């Protein structure tokens, strides 16, 4: 009798699976049919692993086919190209081609100055791209197809550096022929001199047009290794994120400044300080973003540090001070997306009308989702990953 019941249950289950697989178009894809369309990087020990994964179709992904680099390789995606800097604070830039199936093939590399720390890449077109060298205080122009260096814009020296010889360039953003370059002005790689420092460069001549500083309490303009800290809205207003020395220096604050369309100066009437945001379910608020993603309509998502949850000195085992926050840049309002708290090693991305959050929480490490339409928020990973997340990006096709 028992055996017969088990057989019946098995039959029902098989039928149900078959029915769902054949008829429900919203169901997960068969993993074997899915195309790898998300780039993921994780860290395990002293290495990072770069791989592509088939969307959210697999419950568990590992690094079996991943490319290994030393810890925290920066990644930059441009259409079918993936650029990596395999040695953090190193001197190599590698380019991978992404094929139709999401496979990565090494297709070129470029050597920069020794230990110059490539930190952001902006591709203008197939023959022209810019690369910031954070430790060398330079911007390199190169041909992204051939990976050959074509020019150097040297920012080192007293003209643009504060107290030392390096203005520590970070992010790049192009509007028209003007390249906006963030300057961290950091004496130690972590903290920055007061003020938000920015250069504008004319890319037709590769000459500096202007050096602008906003001294309203911020510091450390941009972030190395993350293109999203500078972005342009639908009206060509540029938003510049500054990280306020990552909370290390009292009085230095993090937030956003704006350069309005048609101008190359910071809007004196606009500044958004993160520590002034009132956020429900986040006691004490936030003090900086570690990763962000502009989602259109003046909305930014990011993983933010909640100081109330960060031990001093840090408790690297127990601390989970990272919260996913949605910010309205114009309304200057914010809300917490109710994922579990995470380590700050995390990333967010937009994919299929969802916000993906690669998080490291006490109950799961992987990709969580927030439905932009319904607000449905997962409480456990839809995709479990191997290692703490560093980078997550859908392929730009």
């Amino acid at each position: 009798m028992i055996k017969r019941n088990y057989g019946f249950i098995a039959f029902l289950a098989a039928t149900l699976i078959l029915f769902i697989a054949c008829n429900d178009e919203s169901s997960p894809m068969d993993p074997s049919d899915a195309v790898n369309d998300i780039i993921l990087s994780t860290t395990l020990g002293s290495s990072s692993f770069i791989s592509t994964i088939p969307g959210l179709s697999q419950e568990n992904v590992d690094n079996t086919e991943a490319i290994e680099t030393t810890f925290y390789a920066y990644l930059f995606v441009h259409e079918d190209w993936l650029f990596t800097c395999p040695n953090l604070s190193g001197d190599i830039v590698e380019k991978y081609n992404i094929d139709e199936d999401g496979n990565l093939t090494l297709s070129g590399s470029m050597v920069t100055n020794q230990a110059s720390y490539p930190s952001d890449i902006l591709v203008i077109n197939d023959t022209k791209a810019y690369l910031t060298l954070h430790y060398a205080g330079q911007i390199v122009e190169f041909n992204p197809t051939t990976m050959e260096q074509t020019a150097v814009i040297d920012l080192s020296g007293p003209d643009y550096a504060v107290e030392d010889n390096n203005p520590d360039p970070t992010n790049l953003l192009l509007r028209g022929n003007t390249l906006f370059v963030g300057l961290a002005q950091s004496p130690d790689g972590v903290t920055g001199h007061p003020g938000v420092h920015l250069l504008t460069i004319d890319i037709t001549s590769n000459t500096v047009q202007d050096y602008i500083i906003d001294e309203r309490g911020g510091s450390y303009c941009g972030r190395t290794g993350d293109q999203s800290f500078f972005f342009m809205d639908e009206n060509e207003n540029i938003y510049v994120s500054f990280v306020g020395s990552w909370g290390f220096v009292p009085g230095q604050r993090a937030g956003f400044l704006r350069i309005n369309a048609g101008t190359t100066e910071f809007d004196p009437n606009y500044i958004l300080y993160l520590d002034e945001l009132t956020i429900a379910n986040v006691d004490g608020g936030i003090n900086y973003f570690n990763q962000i993603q502009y989602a259109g309509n003046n909305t930014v998502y990011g993983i933010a540090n909640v100081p109330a949850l960060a031990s001093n000195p840090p408790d690297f085992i127990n601390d989970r001070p990272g919260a996913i926050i949605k910010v309205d840049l114009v309304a200057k309002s914010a809300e917490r997306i109710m994922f579990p708290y995470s380590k700050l090693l995390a990333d967010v991305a937009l994919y299929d009308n969802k916000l993906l959050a690669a998080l490291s929480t006490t109950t799961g490490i992987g990709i969580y989702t927030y439905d932009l339409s319904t607000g449905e928020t997962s409480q456990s990973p839809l995709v479990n990953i191997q290692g703490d997340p560093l980078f997550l990006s859908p392929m730009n096709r």
Partner: protein
Amino acid sequence: MLKNILLFIVFAVGFISASPSGEVHGIILTAKTGEPLEGVNVSIEGTVLGAASDADGYYRIVGIPAGEYTVSAYLVGYEESQQTIEIRVDQSIKLTFHLRQTVLSSSSVLVLGHREEIEAVRKQPFSVSVIDAQAVQARAIDLNEVLSRAAGVQLRQAGGTGSESRISIRGLEGKQVQVFIDGRPLNTPDGTFGINDIPLIFIKRIEVYKGIIPARFGGNGLGGAINVVMNEYETDYLDLGLSRQSFNTNNISTVFVKNFPAPGIKVGAGGWFTFAENNYTMASPFQPGLEINRDHDAFTSVVGAVSLSFSKLWFDEIELEMPILYGKKELQGVQQNIQHAQSKYQAYVGALAMDKTGFFHENLDFNYSLILPLGYSQMVDTSRYRYTFQGERFLSPSGIGELGFSGQNSDNRIFEGSQRINLNLDKSSTQSYNLNLSSRYSTFSPEDPLQNEYLGYDISQQKSKIVSNTLGLTHEISFLGGRLANVVGGKHYAFYSEGYESDIYGSGSGQPPAKTSNFVGEFGFNNGIRLRLNEQIMLKFSYERALRLPTANELYGDGIFLQPSPDIKPESSHNFHAGFLFDKLDSHYRRFQIEVNGFYMRLNDMIQLTGNGITNGYVNLGETRIVGADAEIKADVTNNLYAYLNATYQDSRDILEFLPATSVPNPTEGLRVPNIPWLFGNLGVEYTFRELFGDNQKTKVYLESSYVEEFFYGWEVSNNQNLRIPSSTEHTAGLEFSFNANTFFVSAEIKNLTNERTYNIFNNPLPGRIFAIKLRRTIFGK
């Protein structure tokens, strides 16, 4: 010029003492086992003529005028033996001596000859390899190279002579391996002085404890330990050594000892000078196609010491010693070209050692040592320029300095006082107790005006202090006529430290971090059993619960990027070992040994560096299991041909089930712990020609090879794992001549014969082929 003068002196001294006449030669053997005895003083009574037996027991005395003489053979711990001869001009007489062991009247402890000391250490119930440094003192090699030939041991070295190195024993590395000199922990907080700086002529033997550290040693570690036993000189002695090898690496060393038997006073002096340019060429591990000539890697080490000892006071011996040390190391860049930054140190040491057998009780032995080193270390990085490997110069991005975000011009003061009290009570002929107390008082006082400016406060306020006591009690007992022995030991570690708990969110405030302290009190335990099945076969079993206490750097960070972790616990491990030894000496005095060891270690609360993407700090993170085995065969194939072979397999695996403080499965559970060699081995053959080029001469040729299997730098999770330390095979060939009854040596060898490009630390290329030559002259004494 200096080199030529020294060469002249060494050669001249060698030939002056070789005038022809009658001679006596022969071999010295133990009466009991017939083994050759090294270091026996053989003298012609009524003359100043004499010699000492070599490692094979051979001796030779030349230049004896015709006449009748009494020839005496004497070694501490043996009854003196005498034979009478009558010798004519140009006559050569062969005399063989068989010496019997003695027991000193004031103690039941046997005073053993050099070779038997080694055997005694080797036959401890613990897993231990003993390397006879005297057997390789004529070779142009350093201590690290000697250690790397031992089963279960790997040397992880970043470059040439004087470069950063760490010893790996059965998968334990760096701070997990404790280093002792004569049983006293070597504490050099900033790594200024390492045992590899000590030339081999000062070393008697090297004991490598694999898995269990005897409780009679102080200090702490997870089970691996190196104990360097320094030479003692019982007779008048003068020795000069000179070596030179590729990449302008030079060493000069000397020892002088003079005895005054009547008042029981001995004075000594010695020292060494080592300079290495290390200017080898390497392929950049970072930039494809870039060949780098290492032009900023020079290393200098100078040590001078004087000693005075008394042997006729109430104590059997009181020895005062005063070494002075100086070292300088240029910092070679691998990822970027460094042209000026360098580190230096100076140390002034006062040392006192006292021994007394029959210490208020006829069976109680007392040993005390006190070491008071005062050291200064400097890191000088003040260049306003940086350089590329192509020779371009540019302004330092940080304003000052080539290394990081700020310049450094430190002058740190380090005091490292330590004392050791050891009491050994022989309760009976089969039972003894040993009580050991090792104490340490250490202070660190930083000074750096550039860092003051950079950090915005005076770092000289950030003094740190360590006070520690390690108390060890050992009980040793033997049964069945010594066939079964058990050693049980316990240790208590008391460790107090003071440092600063920097407020990472308050930097730039101009305020120094707040002071904090940490105390650890923990127990360790070990037990070893030795069972001798017969004259040839011995079994060993041992267990230890070992501890490694966190260092000041791990507890308090560096005040800048390395955050303090004042609550981290000691690392601990459970170590099990089983060993099998077969040791046979045949009727022709040819030895055949097989040693096989198996081990299991479980490590908990491993202290690892981790971070949150912005800052780093140490945490108790890992749990690891190490299972492995090593085996070694040594054989005198003939009386002239010796061969050895050893192999080690050690499988170190992550066994943490869930990530700490989470319910998330650990993604590396069951994987091999990366960046640790897991399979390696050595083999060597050595052939000795006796008197190939004349009387009283010995020629040795040898070939050694070592192999290390490829291992990964990171966790092995990908099919495209490309960060790896490739497998390497290295061969060394050498030739050694000894003249004048082993008092004059000339040796030459080629290391890395095939010029293979090797690494044993990721991204740190090692030198290629090295040619080396060494001259050594023992002018008198043994």
